[in-house]
């Protein structure tokens, strides 16, 4: 199993570790994942996300190639822009979801750890049938470290320790800055629903930047804590962000999980024909949010209507520390997807009352 360069730090901090996407990752620290979630919502959380992958696409054909392989519009992006997108297969289902950065001399694509190998194989195969001489694909995951700094005071902290004003970056843009002396690509992006950044920098500087940010936060009276993957999941869930393998997968169309907005039907892209076919035929299930009484609704639990008929299943569910509810994401028949619809989730053989609610349960900072 792989380890990130902060592995020894996590162990020394008393983290509970578990395998995730081939890495031994911190799930929670002694503070506990509920408190970690709340710290990120009130101040600053630091996330070791080195397991995420980074793919660089360059060459004279790179613009046309990237536009063809991802679902969202990218050719209108300016240097520094960062945009959410999907990597679809020809069936119009989701190989991965990713962030595409347009940099001055390259496309920088951030992919999920668990899908990195498959994404790269898919991209390389498409490049070979596209214009192989004009597109170069490099996996930059090994030499690149990635830390997320998230929370309402994250930008304040970053401004204090950087050589340029991170607060001047618009949401979903990026720039180059030295943070605590370390040269970083700073993206004003994240996966928590809070303001903040994701930092890309040389892997050798991981411990320096990580421990430096914690120390600077403490020194300046800005509560800054390491956050594990359990809280990362509850933060993203509450903010309505998808996790590949749950709300998105190769068995799920973006139309079913509400990601039509990430598909630019005015351009050509891999999977477009399938998306258009499903759009005209109509989806047979839709992703909904449910709040549930009487236990934690977990992945795989059956969803029933009030008559007891099975109408879908839970793809992710948990206790939401800020919204203070038990909630689930589930795919159900379109006729049952309206807010206020009464359903049930079967928890340990017993029907627990559930109601369809508007997602997200926590409105992300950039949407307020």
């Amino acid at each position, binding site marked *: 199993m792989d380890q990130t360069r902060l592995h020894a730090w996590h162990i020394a901090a008393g983290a*509970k570790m578990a395998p995730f996407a081939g890495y031994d990752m911190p*799930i*929670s620290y002694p503070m*506990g*994942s*509920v*408190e970690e979630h709340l710290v990120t919502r009130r101040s600053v959380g630091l996330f070791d996300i080195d397991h995420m992958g980074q793919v660089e696409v360059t060459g004279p054909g790179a613009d046309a190639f990237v536009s063809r392989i991802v679902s969202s519009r990218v050719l209108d992006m300016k240097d520094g822009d960062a945009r959410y997108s999907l990597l679809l297969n020809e069936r119009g289902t989701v190989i991965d979801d990713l962030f595409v950065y347009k940099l001055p001399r390259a496309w920088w694509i951030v992919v999920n750890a668990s899908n990195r190998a498959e994404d790269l194989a898919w991209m390389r195969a498409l490049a070979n049938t596209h214009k192989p001489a004009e597109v170069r694909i490099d996996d930059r995951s090994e030499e690149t470290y990635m830390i997320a700094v998230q929370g309402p005071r994250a930008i304040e902290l970053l401004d204090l320790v950087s050589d340029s004003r991170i607060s001047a970056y618009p949401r979903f843009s990026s720039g180059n800055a030295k943070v605590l002396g370390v040269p970083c690509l700073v993206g004003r992006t994240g996966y928590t629903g809070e303001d903040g950044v994701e930092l890309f920098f040389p892997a050798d500087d991981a411990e320096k930047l990580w421990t430096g940010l914690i120390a600077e936060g403490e020194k300046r009276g800005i509560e800054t804590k390491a956050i594990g993957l*359990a809280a990362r999941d*509850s933060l993203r869930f509450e903010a309505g962000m998808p996790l590949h393998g749950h709300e998105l997968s190769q068995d799920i169309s973006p139309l079913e999980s509400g990601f039509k907005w990430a598909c630019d039907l005015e351009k050509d892209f891999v999977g477009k024909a399938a998306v258009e076919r499903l759009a005209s035929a109509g989806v047979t299930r839709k992703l909904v949010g449910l709040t549930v009484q*009487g*236990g*934690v609704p*977990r992945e795989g639990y059956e969803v029933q209507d009030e008559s007891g008929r099975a109408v879908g299943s839970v793809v992710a569910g*948990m*206790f939401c520390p800020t919204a203070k509810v*038990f909630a689930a994401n589930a795919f159900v028949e379109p006729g049952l997807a309206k807010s206020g619809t009464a359903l049930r989730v079967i928890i*340990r053989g017993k029907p627990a009352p559930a109601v369809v609610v508007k997602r997200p349960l926590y409105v992300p900072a950039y949407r307020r």
Partner: protein
Amino acid sequence: MSIDKNSRYRSSHEWARKDGARVVSGISDHAQDALGDIVFVELPEVGKVLKQGEAFGVVESVKAASDVYMPMSGKILAVNEALSGDPALVNREPYSGGWFIAYEPTNPSEWDGLLTPEAYEAEAGKE
């Protein structure tokens, strides 16, 4: 790992403590630490009669749901209502405010078969 010296234990990490004629039970400090943040506890109806080793409830942490088992046979006299509003009491005070159930033991001699604090500490320490 803290151990309540006045309790006896099951190897499945429940404790039992005599309280007059009643027995009170919950889960050990070792168990709450291994489970992580506890977000929901399901407890039995008062009056229910359960055998030793039978599941009496469920404790749900952020990561998983786990059954909890009767350390001794008994009739449920009271359950800790405070856990429905504040299940994290189990994390903070596993041997006091985070108790689960109080019951009338129907076979008091089962006490002698439970693990002593020393035996439980040795067993849990090996995990």
